[in-house]
């Protein structure tokens, strides 16, 4: 199956998929992000870490167009991106999951993931009303792809279950499935493992790495568990109080004194 279209063979001279330049964002008087710059290479797993309230989620919201930064530039896929609505950004190939699960509670697992195919489907109201013909063909073609996602995430058995009835860990997995179904160029994951037990975390890690390996999907991920971050990410950016305080390989970042201070300062 081919869920991805980008290639990640250039280890030496990596192509930049997303480049954030001097982003500043404030809500009234609250400065959520102050002059942050970093980039994401095509095909890598980029972790964003930092204490609570550091501005990590706000950063993802800037990337997928929910928040419009007061300052700074966003370059995506080699182009300077103008201010856009989130649904337009979805069409550019950015998908995400949320820190607090944001599934469609009244719909089945299958329908949730099928909704992830929205940008790839186009039959209009007229064809939809007739169903037989183009609309049904489009539905079946996309259903096949969605079934691959379902197989991949090992959730075949709960296909028809309303998502509201699922335990937390599975809901997180379905939400990942919905984002994957969009075949994004860039996948944003906001604390995909928060609140999970060790086993569920291991599963989720495996899925994230598999997505990255098999489909070459570029992933930006927010995570608190340092062990997980060190294991699965290629590069790490560290935020604290809305500023960037570290950026680099997991090992370098872990041994950085400023980063250690920020983390110790918060947890004690």
């Amino acid at each position, binding site marked *: 199956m081919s869920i991805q279209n980008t290639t990640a063979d250039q280890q030496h001279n990596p192509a930049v998929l997303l480049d954030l330049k001097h982003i500043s964002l404030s809500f009234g008087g609250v400065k959520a992000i102050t002059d942050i710059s970093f980039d994401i290479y095509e095909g890598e797993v980029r972790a964003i870490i930092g204490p609570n309230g550091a501005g990590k989620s706000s950063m993802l919201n800037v990337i*997928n167009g*929910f928040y419009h930064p007061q300052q700074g530039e966003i370059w995506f896929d080699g182009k300077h991106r103008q201010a856009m*609505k*989130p*649904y337009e*950004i*979805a*069409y550019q190939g950015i*998908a*995400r999951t*949320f820190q607090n699960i*944001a*599934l*469609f*509670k*009244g*719909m089945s697992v299958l*329908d949730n993931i*099928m*909704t*992830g*195919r*929205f*940008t790839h*489907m186009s*039959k209009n*109201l007229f064809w*939809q*009303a*007739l*169903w037989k013909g183009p*609309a*049904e063909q*489009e*539905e*079946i073609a996309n*259903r*096949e792809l969605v*079934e691959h996602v379902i197989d991949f995430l090992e959730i075949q058995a709960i296909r028809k279950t309303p998502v509201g009835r699922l335990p937390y860990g599975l809901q997180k997995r379905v939400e990942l499935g*919905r984002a994957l179904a*969009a075949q994004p160029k860039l996948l944003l994951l906001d604390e995909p493992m928060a609140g999970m037990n060790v086993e569920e975390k291991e599963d989720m890690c495996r899925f994230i790495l598999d997505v990255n390996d098999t489909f070459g999907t570029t992933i930006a991920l927010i995570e608190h568990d340092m062990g997980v971050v060190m294991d699965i990410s290629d590069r790490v950016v560290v935020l604290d109080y809305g500023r960037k305080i570290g950026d680099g390989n997991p090992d370098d970042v872990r041994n950085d004194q400023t980063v250690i201070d920020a983390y110790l300062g918060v947890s004690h």
Partner: protein
Amino acid sequence: MFYRESGDFKKTYQDDSQTFPIKFDRRRYYVVMAIAFLVLPMFMTDYFANAMMIPFLVWAIAALGLNILVGYCGQLSLGTGGFMAVGAYATYKLMTSFPGMDMFSVVLLSGFVTALVGMIFGLPSLRIKGFYLAVATLAAQFFLVWLLNKVPWFYNYSASGQITAPERSIFGIIITGPHASPITGYLFCLILAVGLAWVARNLTRGRLGRSWMAIRDMDIAAEIIGVNPLMAKLSAFAVSSFFVGVAGSLFFSVYLGAAEVTEAFSINVSFAVLFMVIIGGLGSIFGSFVGAAFMVLMPVLLKNILVGGFGWPTDLAAHLEFIIVGALIVIFLIVEPHGLAQMARVLKEKLRLWPFPH
């Protein structure tokens, strides 16, 4: 274990997503259709057609329409009466301006006119939600009724302010007017109701329906997946109003024959259709029919029992009807917010296991 799905494996995704995946349900559907189209018209009395079946079908179409908006897209509307009025008056203007037009075209065009009006009044939904949207649609209700009552052009300057359906036919069969047979009226409504239910089913199972439900369940997540909220909400308003407009058109032309806007399409109509949707089941096509049947048949039934059986005075029976409907709505909201359709679903799950409960 006569009702089962085990051993009924689906080999294609097409089979898997059909409307009645279980054989028993599929057979029952064909039986119901055969009765509705073939058996009933042969044995039905004019009273039965006029007092029960035609209103049932008309309200079912209205409930389907409102259900698309409220149940599937999560946008509360109290403007149903006003939109039905638009459908009715569009029908009247079309019938009187183009006497040669067949009734199917008249009804469907009236639906399109209502869809346009519905989209205009749906615009506020982009900015306001829930309770405030309900109030905005309430404004639509009052404005539309006021407008249709105030501007004489809409009722062709008739002295009574009433609109009256002239005789119109399709393929030479008279559908409206004093000489129309209730049975043909019933069949005409039945064809439209079945056709529209099929359209509703198609729209709600595909891409568009998923975008409506996504907006209903979690609008933020819908947007990041590519759903344009404006398009989703306006398309829901348009489709919903189309259905409601068709219902209004039939209500006036086939059922009432003559109507006065402030009486026939008051706020009570808006509430009645909303009750049908709640009692039948939000987000269920089958439920729209059940809710309509319930609201149409229960008064008739109560009246027959209380007035016919116990010899109560009619006004007392009518009051009791209000009390019962009110109580039922409260009960439904508490016990089973998903309505009669959900109750049927639960029953089915039990049947599937019967006679072994575990």
